[in-house]
């Protein structure tokens, strides 16, 4: 069974067609880069997949079910959508306590994910004082609390310093080696090229390409060249 299956997904915000008849699927154990320029519809697609935004048409399922119908959703899917969505007055540890209770995670996981994301020393600090990079780490820590088999990450490298990007890459590789499926969106192509097995490319809400990374970059200098060629062709 496909882990993620998106069929004919469409969403319009007023006059803007954000996502247009989008279809693609993700197989178990794949690390998939979800690529597109800012405004291509990546975030809207992920939010529809996660039941936060209602599609105008089409379906998006995880393990064969709509997100709202998943039993214990956080044990199946961990998502990091935006780095700023924390209550600023709460400490990182308290934030994780709330999420562990909500997601029925073992409280002992809190220390583990803090360690894993390098936040142990900052656990008692209020999130309002965190840098963007620390918030990204806390978002990842939150998603990993429940040890899900599928991770959905929206621009996780935003705000990370070069060390952080390196750390993120290692983390994703480690998760993939452990058998996790990862869908990671990005507009920074170089960053993704070193991590993913395959890519889904989106341009103005439409699917431009889905293919293994190796096939896509064959005959091109790098992923960036392949990306621009494809999106240029699509806009003709």
């Amino acid at each position, binding site marked *: 069974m496909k882990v993620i299956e998106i069929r004919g997904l469409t969403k319009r915000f007023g006059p803007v067609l954000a996502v247009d008849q989008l279809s693609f699927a993700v197989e178990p154990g794949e690390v998939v880069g979800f690529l597109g320029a800012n405004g291509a519809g990546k975030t809207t697609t992920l939010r529809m997949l996660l039941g936060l935004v*209602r599609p105008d048409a089409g379906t998006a399922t995880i393990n064969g079910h709509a997100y709202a119908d998943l039993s214990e*959703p*956080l044990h199946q899917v961990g998502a990091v*959508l*935006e780095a700023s*969505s924390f209550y600023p007055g709460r400490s990182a540890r308290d934030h994780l306590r709330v999420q562990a209770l909500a997601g029925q995670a073992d409280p002992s996981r809190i220390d583990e994910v803090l360690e894993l994301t390098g936040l142990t020393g900052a656990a008692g600090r209020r999130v309002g004082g965190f840098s963007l990079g620390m918030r990204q780490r806390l978002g990842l820590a939150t998603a990993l609390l429940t040890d899900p088999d599928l991770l959905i990450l929206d621009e996780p490298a935003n705000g990370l310093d070069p060390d952080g990007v390196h750390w993120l890459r290692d983390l994703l590789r480690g998760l993939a080696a452990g058998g996790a499926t990862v869908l990671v969106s990005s507009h920074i192509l170089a960053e993704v090229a070193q991590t993913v097995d395959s890519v889904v490319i989106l341009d103005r809400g439409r699917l431009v390409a889905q293919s293994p990374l190796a096939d896509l970059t064959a005959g091109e200098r790098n992923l960036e060249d392949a990306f621009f060629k494809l999106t240029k062709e699509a806009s003709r």
Partner: protein
Amino acid sequence: MNSFHRPGTGAISADEKGSLTRLVRVELLKLRTTRLSYGLLATAAGLTALFSVLEASRAGPGKAVAPLYTTTGLTAVITGGVWALLLAAVLGVTVSSGEFRHATATQTYLATPRRGRVLAAKAVAAACAGAVFGLAGYVIAAGTGLVFVAARGYRVPVGDATMARYAIGHVVAAALLAAVGVALGSLIRSQLAAVIGVFVWAIVIESLLGGLFNAIQPYLPYTAATTLAGSPLGGAAFGPAHDAATAAVPLPFAAATALIAGVAILLSAVASRTTVPRDVT
């Protein structure tokens, strides 16, 4: 069997009851780890103390407030506790609108995609916290009154049963108003607008309506809540509504409770059909 169950179509299964209990615990943990909750409680306590002391010090024969050896005088002091009711409603507003102010609704709905349950859990959790506000308001207001009564060497003019009713009234009224606040904050997602709405409704609109149309005064929800807490009809209002010579009498305890609970349920139902299902972007 559970797999066929859909919320709202039948009895709540043991599983769902368990999950609702957990959701309430999540919301209570959020409240306990939020400085704003403690700030609002401190504000409620401070305003109650201030107004109770002011009323008590203005009381006496021929003064603005009836002497503290009369039921009217002591009740006027205990009316200071209505600030806890008002702040409980504000707390309720922050419980729901805070999720949008800080964009935490995303994580909340990822953990619990059934948004109606989140709203219900928030209402229950806010009501629990509201009960604490009500109790604090009563203890401070009644305590202030009794200290002044003792200091002036009077006998307590209000019986134990009535005092107990005032205490329970504070707790019930504050709990229900907190649930109303949750519903209001879900409807008006802007925290500032919803908080202003609570004050304008309670202090301005109900005072105006109550002053202009005495007959409907007992049925105004905030006014009904204040009478539950022992305040005379209009006692917590401003302007003409405060001393309106009216033939109207406060609603009985059960009726006032049902009225405020009804407002909370009605507003929650409207919110869960309008604003709650909206896209979280």
